[in-house]
């Protein structure tokens, strides 16, 4: 009985993921097809394109598949992918998977740092603001969070670059390794040093969102009947908060934290662009601009899986942590 339910759950989630992947790959292919960008022109450069012979141009158009209809391109791609072949990135002239593997490691580090940082600080700031609602602490945190929540990521990135990289020269102004050093040669210290500024930019935006949500939840809890009853029974404010606030905060915080994966992912595209950080987001931008359908679709699928898994983990953890789900209904 229990086994059946588990199989059912896994089956349902897998089906959802497959449908998601199919739809996303179609949309990505379609978008590349309707894009007004001429991949040949984009990838050879203005001068080279102008001086190119017509034959050479035709050869390159053949290479980029300019004249192949989108449906045919898609079915070719789909046939290959079923056999595990992700294709070749035309822009990087490498197999798609190896481009992604390299970029993903860079991005993953950036995103994990930003994700953990924004989660922890967002939660702490949110609790502080909620507990001291209306006081100075709250006003400062709320002001900070509201300002940042309405700040565009790329603008904050530029600002950080100007202040910390250009004026103060504390951090490098871009890339994941020092100039002239390849990724393989760079030490961990060098890589972390290059990571700090983009990770900080990415997490500062995330903090705002999590802090504001946490603040609301803390206020809800402190206005709840059970919090009042705890005080009425002689628990001090500190005890009541410890006993009732953290536990009830954990569930929404978890959902928020895993849902924020998609935001961090989206933000990383902009931040990597601003900091010339060679991550997945930057690769996505150049694949899009260069008409590199195979790479763009692969990145879209990887990101979708990533976000999907984040939400799935949150759902499952809910069942583990929340007794109302665990004892009440079980999985799904």
């Amino acid at each position, binding site marked *: 009985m229990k086994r059946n339910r588990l199989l059912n759950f896994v089956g349902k989630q897998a089906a959802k993921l497959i449908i998601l992947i199919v739809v996303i790959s179609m949309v990505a292919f379609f978008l590349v097809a309707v894009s007004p960008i001429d991949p040949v022109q984009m990838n050879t450069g203005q001068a080279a394109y102008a001086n190119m012979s017509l034959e050479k141009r035709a050869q390159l158009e053949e290479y980029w598949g300019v004249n192949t209809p989108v449906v045919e391109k898609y079915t070719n791609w789909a046939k290959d992918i079923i056999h595990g072949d992700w294709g070749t990135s035309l822009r990087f002239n490498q197999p798609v998977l190896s481009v992604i593997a390299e970029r993903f490691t860079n991005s993953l580090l950036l995103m994990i740092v930003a994700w953990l940082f924004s989660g922890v600080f967002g939660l702490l700031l949110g609790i502080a603001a909620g507990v001291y609602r209306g006081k100075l602490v709250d006003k400062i945190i709320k002001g900070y969070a509201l300002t940042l929540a309405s700040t565009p990521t790329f603008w904050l990135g530029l600002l950080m670059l100007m202040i910390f990289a250009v004026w103060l020269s504390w951090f490098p102004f871009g890339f994941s390794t020092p100039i002239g050093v390849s990724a393989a040669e760079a030490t961990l210290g060098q890589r972390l040093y290059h990571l700090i500024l983009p990770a900080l930019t990415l997490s500062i935006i995330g903090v705002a969102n999590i802090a504001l949500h946490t603040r609301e939840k803390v206020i809800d809890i402190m206005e709840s*009947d*059970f919090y009042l009853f705890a005080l009425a029974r002689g628990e001090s404010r500190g005890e009541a908060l410890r006993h009732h606030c953290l536990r*009830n905060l954990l569930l929404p915080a978890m959902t928020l934290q895993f849902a924020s994966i998609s935001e961090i992912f989206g933000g990383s595209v902009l931040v990597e662009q601003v900091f010339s950080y060679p991550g997945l987001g930057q690769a996505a931008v150049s694949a899009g601009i260069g008409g590199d359908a195979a790479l763009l679709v692969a990145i879209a699928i990887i990101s979708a899986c990533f976000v999907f898994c984040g939400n799935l983990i949150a759902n499952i953890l809910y069942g583990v942590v929340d007794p109302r789900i665990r004892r009440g209904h079980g999985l799904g």
Partner: protein
Amino acid sequence: MTCLTKKHILEIENLSVSFLQYDKGMRQRSLQVITNLSVSVHEGEIVAVVGASGSGKSLLAHAVLGLLPANADVSGTLRFEGKPLTAASIAALRGKGITLVPQSIAYLDPLLKAGKAVRKNKRDAGARKKQRELFAHFQLDPATENLYPFELSGGMARRVLLAAALMDDPRLIIADEPTPGLDLELAKKALADFRAFADQGNGVLLITHDIELALSVADRIAVFYAGTTVEEAPVIDFEAETTLRHPYTKALWRALPENGFAALPGNQPYVKAMPKGCPFGPRCSLFSPSCEGEIPLKTIRCGTVRCIKATGSVEV
């Protein structure tokens, strides 16, 4: 007949509660929700505060426990076992001397198991023993301590809340509408539990809208109307209309099924449109212009009343 021979546990004198609120735009106004309320609880006594829904009765409970929100302004004198209550002494008494029995399961943390909730998260053997004794006393299965609030039935939840209130041996229980949602059997049991607690020399302040319930269990009844107590009377006075003091209490009495079921027309005044003087004036058959002045508290026999028309001679 001698009155007030027993020791006071709780005395409330001229309690007024008002809230500072933003009216239109930035204009602040003060909303008076409780006015000159006086009620007292003696040792071994259940005192019921009876009033219609929305008359501010719950605020009375919160005021005694010092748990009103920050924008509330409280005046008047509160005394517990003869000593005046201050913010600090209320904080020290919460849970120990004075405790609350709330009205519903929403007052239990949804993510805390019943046993742990009753123990206030304490893990020591003493707390555990006490909690198990209380569960046994209320005929709760020992396994109940591992259930979450959503797994409790209405009756179990009431007993858990009662056990929670009794955990630290209070002297006074303030029970805020403890019976709605319970079937008659359970409601009777709940009241029997309060009776047993009071009979040990403690006090219960029962806040309810259910006058029949109050009459069946309380020793004295305080009638709450539009934010104040208009009359405080021994329950025996409710056996006949003539022994009651206030016109509103008499109207309540006549509204009881066994006394004619006659409803009084009109509604309680809203806090923003309170009449001058006696709040019951506009609905009172004895109304005269003098009712719009100051209405002092009078003691008639073993009860008190706020009505200038009430006299000792009402007695038959």
